[in-house]
């Protein structure tokens, strides 16, 4: 009995030590995604995309001979949890960089932690205030809502529909969008004739829309994430309102078309190019990575790769490029990230610099319209 146990222990020890001696230490990348909870529509595709692209990188041999290891935690959309998990990633898991979180609220809570610990943070959320004012260790891959607003206003100015009504959701995303809508209005000659809100769980917005119907606005801009905008689209149809309806990039996914059904036809919104990847001109630098992303995601997860998953894909690829350029400590990675130029990602073409950690320009968005339950680019 004793001898048997000894042999087993020696065999196990040999195997253990030999296994360790052959592999080079993997590079640990931390991730905070809101896989469950109210922001799950962001966190789940982001986590899926991150896993998918890291698996692919590892299959192709890793980065400079070392594999990437993704340590992903679920924050459930809760800022307090995000801060706790960020500390855990840095102190316990000893990651060299953190991807995420999925929402602006969580990101703003985590920033003081990563700034203090000097670990680069590549956020997947859209709030402009994440990188403005600029923070040394914080980058983001999601397009600013300022750019989305600019895209809509540009179109409205062109078509001379300058009297708008705003209907925004009363959470962080809606509040940020509303702020942008109000502050950029003057620049494009837009007048805001009414400004209403609705709750994220509200199921009937006919009251707000009746009020809007009375204002003779030439366009209605709705800023929120599913399911609210789908209810609004249906209510607009019910009330027989003919005013053109614009939405935010928060609903640029097939789910919105599915929920709103017939009522989605004709709605315009700014979207990342991923939803119209197949109809982009070949000259578009993003077409190749976009098509690859969409097809990969479809193969792996049997679902449409969307705009949100793209943010995580971009974050991993940006990190990979920084690592390829020889960086392996947190500080070196940060410096390399800042040097990123013209990286054709899913969200757009990234150009970071010491003054710009958001990296995207107006071309990151296209204005799309819902036609026959699918997206078409608006000329």
């Amino acid at each position: 009995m004793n001898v048997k146990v000894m042999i087993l222990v020696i065999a196990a020890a040999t195997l253990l030590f030999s296994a360790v001696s052959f592999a080079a230490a993997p590079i640990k990348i931390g991730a905070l995604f809101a896989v469950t909870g109210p922001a799950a529509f962001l966190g789940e595709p982001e986590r899926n995309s991150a896993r998918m692209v890291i698996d692919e990188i590892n299959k192709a041999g890793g980065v400079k001979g070392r594999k990437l290891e993704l340590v992903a935690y679920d924050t459930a959309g809760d800022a307090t949890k995000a801060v706790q998990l960020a500390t855990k990633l840095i102190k316990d898991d000893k990651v060299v960089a953190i991807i995420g979180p999925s929402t602006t609220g969580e990101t703003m809570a985590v920033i003081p932690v990563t700034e203090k610990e000097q670990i680069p943070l590549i956020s997947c959320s859209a709030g402009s205030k994440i990188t403005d004012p600029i923070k040394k260790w914080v980058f983001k891959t999601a397009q600013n809502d300022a750019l989305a607003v600019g895209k809509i206003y540009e179109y409205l100015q062109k078509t001379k529909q300058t009297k708008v009504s705003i209907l925004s959701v009363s959470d962080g995303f809606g509040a940020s969008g509303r702020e942008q809508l109000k502050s950029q209005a003057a620049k494009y000659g837009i007048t805001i004739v009414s400004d209403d809100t609705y709750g994220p769980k509200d199921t009937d917005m006919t009251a707000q829309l009746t009020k809007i119907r009375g204002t003779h606005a030439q366009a209605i801009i709705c800023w929120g994430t599913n399911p609210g905008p789908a209810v609004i689209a249906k209510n607009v149809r019910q009330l027989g309102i003919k005013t053109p309806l614009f939405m935010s990039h928060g609903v640029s996914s097939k789910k919105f078309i599915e929920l709103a059904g017939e009522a989605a036809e004709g709605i315009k919104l700014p979207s990342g190019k991923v939803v119209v990847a197949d109809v982009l001109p070949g000259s578009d630098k993003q077409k190749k990575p976009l098509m690859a992303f969409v097809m990969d995601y479809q193969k792996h997860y049997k679902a449409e790769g969307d705009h949100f998953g793209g943010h995580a894909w971009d974050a991993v690829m940006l990190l990979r490029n920084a690592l390829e350029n020889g960086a392996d400590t947190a500080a070196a990675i940060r410096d390399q990230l800042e040097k990123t130029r013209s990286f054709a990602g899913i969200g757009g073409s990234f150009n970071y610099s010491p003054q710009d950690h958001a990296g995207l320009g107006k071309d990151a968005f296209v204005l799309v319209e819902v036609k026959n339950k699918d997206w078409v680019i608006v000329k």
Partner: protein
Amino acid sequence: MQFDQILQYTLSGLSTGAIYALIGIGFSIIYNATGIINFAQGEFVMLGGLLTLSCLELLKLPLWAAVPCAVAVSTLVGILFERLAIRPLRQPTPINLVIITIGGSILIRGLAMLVWGKDTHAVPPFSGDTPIAIGGATILPQHLWIFAITLIIIFINKVYFYRTISGKAMRACSYNRRAAGLVGIDVKRMVLFSFIISSAMGAVAGIIVAPLTMTAYDVGVMLGLKGFCAAIIGGMSSGASTVIGGLILGVLESLGAGLISSGYKDAIAFIILLLILFIRPQGLFGKADSERV
């Protein structure tokens, strides 16, 4: 133009109010038979909508078969809930029962999340979605279904409670449980019936409103709370008062959102609840409780 707007707010408010009324009656029936506030009532509403969706999509049943199927399964859940969570209680103090029903609601919600996911789902309307114009306002055919079915259910309720023996027995339990037991009414069976009726009504409410508002695993929370407000306004009666309470709540909510501020929509419902509890806790139509000393 102003009158048209008010008409629109009122019509929308009446249909939401009808749903609150149905849920509120569910609360009242259980309260009257057992003295419990069943905070899981909202979850039956949610189950009705989601089960109909499953029957339509997974089992491919036509609408007229899916609805009774969904109601039946929800009622089954209600029976299980009563048998497993309420009946075994040795010390049925109010606080125990409240906590158990809240726990039950969280459990049902969690299971729903596992089965149907966190997504919102659209349910097809019963008879299309071409708007109907009334005066300067528009409503959808689904609103007409809501009004019609609510009236039918209230009528059936009235007949049941005032014309049938078991209905009268349940009313007897609500007046005085001990006396009812003494005259030979099986109080435990009445409790079961009250759960059956409430869960069925909740499920119907969920089914008729789902095509308008879409359904998800967590729609029960807010609807349950607002239905509870409606029941309190109506003084916890299982009849016309709760219906009127629900309609008032729906209309005030809609008018408040339209005329005052849309951000305060939920607040209006709860402010009304607080006012009623402070000023007239027996509800607008109830008689104040009096005790013989």
